């Protein structure tokens, strides 16, 4: 590149100190304004929550926006006090209204750590709820502890967060991802008893690699004579799977496992069905529930579907769930997906924990430590099912898992799920003190299945 805009040697390096000093002073002034603008701690009038989710990029549609919508709606319900029992305890959380500051999760963990600090120190949020990407969760957790800010990781999946470390200020109110693939493996073996071979197509990044590793290990643990024929790892957001589909066809596996999500999953389904892959093999799509309504009859019948927990169509029919679905559909004219459920679940956990701590604190707003003690090992009712904070020293939730089979009801023109099976939390989650990988590889000792 021929760069013509350089400065001649003789004049470039001489600048005015005064101008530079002015910049520095300006930056200083901006900083000081923010510094003194810190509000003094006073009577709690509002609970300021930083809400972080993908608002741009490929993850915005499938996760980020349903996540934000779910949060918005549940916060509305909490603030107006319209939630059904057991959350019909008046407006707000212990009378305090929730306000949110929304931040985009795009841009990688470095930016997210910066923005997390900005949320806490510049925007003075009381706590942070969010994070869909596991990488972001891993990066945020130690920062949250360092800054002593209550942080609820609402959606990310990697088990590593509480298996590799322990945190005081960090909670994850949704189960981690190991159970998705363990339950899928259990379900697949039940549904296809004579299964001999299976293959995988997963995105080439941590989520896809971990999902396949867990599934593969669970299959080997549950039925050692089965065999994986091919493991495909297309680049994330590749959108083009023609070669991979050919490879899957040639492998002639009895089943194909995939943890694809979002546009990648939909593209894969279009390309696979156009070539009849779904007719030759049993597809197991562990994260596909969010797309079934949108895809409708384009989703092939007979596909095994997961929702990463008892959410969406797998949610139990309770007053809480009916309230959630009705309000969500009324407000956004679309079905809530698991991202909407899990963020709602996070706010329910907050409401129950803070109100318990509030009561224990003689009706005064509790300290962060008091909230934390209330939340540790807490059990609470959520929109999909009951949640227990039983792993990670009381910081990591477990729930039951659910898997079913997709069927498009032509008469009703509606996407449905059949043969739903629920797996108890103890059946598909490792006990405290052992990592998921070790537990699965060790044959899932002590799993209590019903």
């Amino acid at each position, binding site marked *: 590149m021929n760069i013509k805009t*350089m400065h001649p040697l003789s004049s470039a390096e001489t600048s005015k100190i005064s101008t530079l000093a002015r910049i520095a002073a300006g930056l200083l002034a901006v900083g000081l304004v923010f510094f003194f603008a810190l509000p003094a701690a006073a009577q709690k009038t509002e609970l300021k929550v930083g809400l972080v989710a993908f608002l741009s990029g490929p993850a915005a549609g499938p996760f980020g926006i349903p996540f934000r919508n779910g949060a918005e709606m549940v916060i509305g319900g909490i603030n107006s006090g319209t939630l059904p029992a057991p959350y019909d305890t008046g407006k707000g959380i212990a009378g305090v209204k929730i306000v949110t500051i929304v931040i985009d999760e795009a*841009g990688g963990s470095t930016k997210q750590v910066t923005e997390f600090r*900005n949320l806490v120190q510049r925007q003075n949020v009381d706590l942070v709820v969010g994070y869909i990407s596991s990488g972001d969760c*891993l990066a945020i957790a130690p920062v949250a502890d360092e800054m002593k800010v209550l942080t609820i990781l609402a959606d990310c999946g990697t088990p590593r967060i509480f298996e590799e470390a322990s945190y005081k200020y960090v909670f994850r109110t949704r189960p981690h991802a190991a159970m998705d693939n363990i339950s899928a493996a259990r379900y697949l073996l039940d549904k296809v008893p004579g299964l001999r071979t299976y293959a995988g197509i997963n995105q080439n990044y*941590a989520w896809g690699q971990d999902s396949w590793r867990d599934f593969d290990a669970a299959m080997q643990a549950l039925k050692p004579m089965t065999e994986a024929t091919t493991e495909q790892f297309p680049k994330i957001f590749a959108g083009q799977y023609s070669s991979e589909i050919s490879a899957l066809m040639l492998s002639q596996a009895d089943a194909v496992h995939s943890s694809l999500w979002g546009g990648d999953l939909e593209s894969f389904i279009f390309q696979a069905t156009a070539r009849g892959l779904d007719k030759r093999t049993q597809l197991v799509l562990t994260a596909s529930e969010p797309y079934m309504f949108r895809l409708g009859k384009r989703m092939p019948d007979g596909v095994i579907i997961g929702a990463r927990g008892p959410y969406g169509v797998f949610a139990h029919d309770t007053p809480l769930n009916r309230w959630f679905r009705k309000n969500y559909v009324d407000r956004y004219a679309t079905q809530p997906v698991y991202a909407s459920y899990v963020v709602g679940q996070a706010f329910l956990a907050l409401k129950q924990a803070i109100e318990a701590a509030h009561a224990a604190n003689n009706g005064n707003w509790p300290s962060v430590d008091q909230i934390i003690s209330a939340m540790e090992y807490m059990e609470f009712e959520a929109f999909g099912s009951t949640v227990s904070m039983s792993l990670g020293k009381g910081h990591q939730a477990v729930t039951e898992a659910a898997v079913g089979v997709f069927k498009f009801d032509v008469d009703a023109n509606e996407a449905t799920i059949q043969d739903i099976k629920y797996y108890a939390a103890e059946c598909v989650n490792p006990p405290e003190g052992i990592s998921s990988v070790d537990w699965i590889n060790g044959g899932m000792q002590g799993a209590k299945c019903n």
Partner: protein
Amino acid sequence: MIEKDKTLRTLAIAVAIFAVAGFFLPQWAVFMLTLALAKGLVVLGLLILWRTGLLSFGHALFYCTGGYAVGLAGLWGLTDVVALIALGTVASILLAFALGFLITRYREIYFAMLSMAFSMILYGVLVKSEVLGSTDGFNISPPTFLGVKLEGESLTLGNYLVTCLLVWAAGWGVHRYLQSTMGHMSIGIRDNEIRVEYLGVSVRRVIHVKYVIAAALAGAGGAISAMVVGHIDPDSMAYWTVSGEFVFVTILAGTGSVVAPFLGSIVFELVRTYAFQYTPYTWQLILGSTLLLLILILPDGLWSLFTRRKARV
């Protein structure tokens, strides 16, 4: 005929002001400045290359190398801040020295694209390394300062002051280098490589040295980022968009002075974070428009604000 060169004084005063300001600024600002200055180090390296007419679209390769060197050292128990930065820098230098034998044959867009290909190969390797957490990456414990373990605000401040010191040292060294014969050879190589060879100077060797210096700065920047953020993963350290951002800041800042990269980096970071805060749904639009305007109004970069008046006289 010898003009009094005030750059080093400006640099020293600016760094001193910033360092002192660190004691008064809010935490978030100190943290953001630390990262901006660390990235400014990377951009300072790109400035050297760009003065030579070379732009690396894959400089994240060295940023990432520095970061992962720190991460791996952390896994083995090394925590001293000076040792870690030195390690990240040296790792990048070694890599750049090896790659330099190849890449110094390339110019223009081919230099840019080959750099990018190298960085994306590293990205691919890291994505495939499940031991290192693949795209999720892994966490790094906070550094110690000559055996002293800091926490909370003093940790943030400690990181910041070390970064300021490094910025001063790097700015000083690079300025000296740019003022030297070999530094000035940038213009020569950019304008006319044939003449440079006929002056008896090896163009490839000069570029090799510049490439290694640029890599060293990027390695130091990556090491600081990794330590300060406490987490590394390939997406925020090696992906091509990371390199793209460095290039963007280089052009935005201008090449007039060693102070420019840091100014550009801070401005970029401020624009981005406020766009994030006030327009979470359309921050790319705001960021893109702002940068577009800056490019159109200040073709020679932000630094031309400080030199234009002089040029008119």
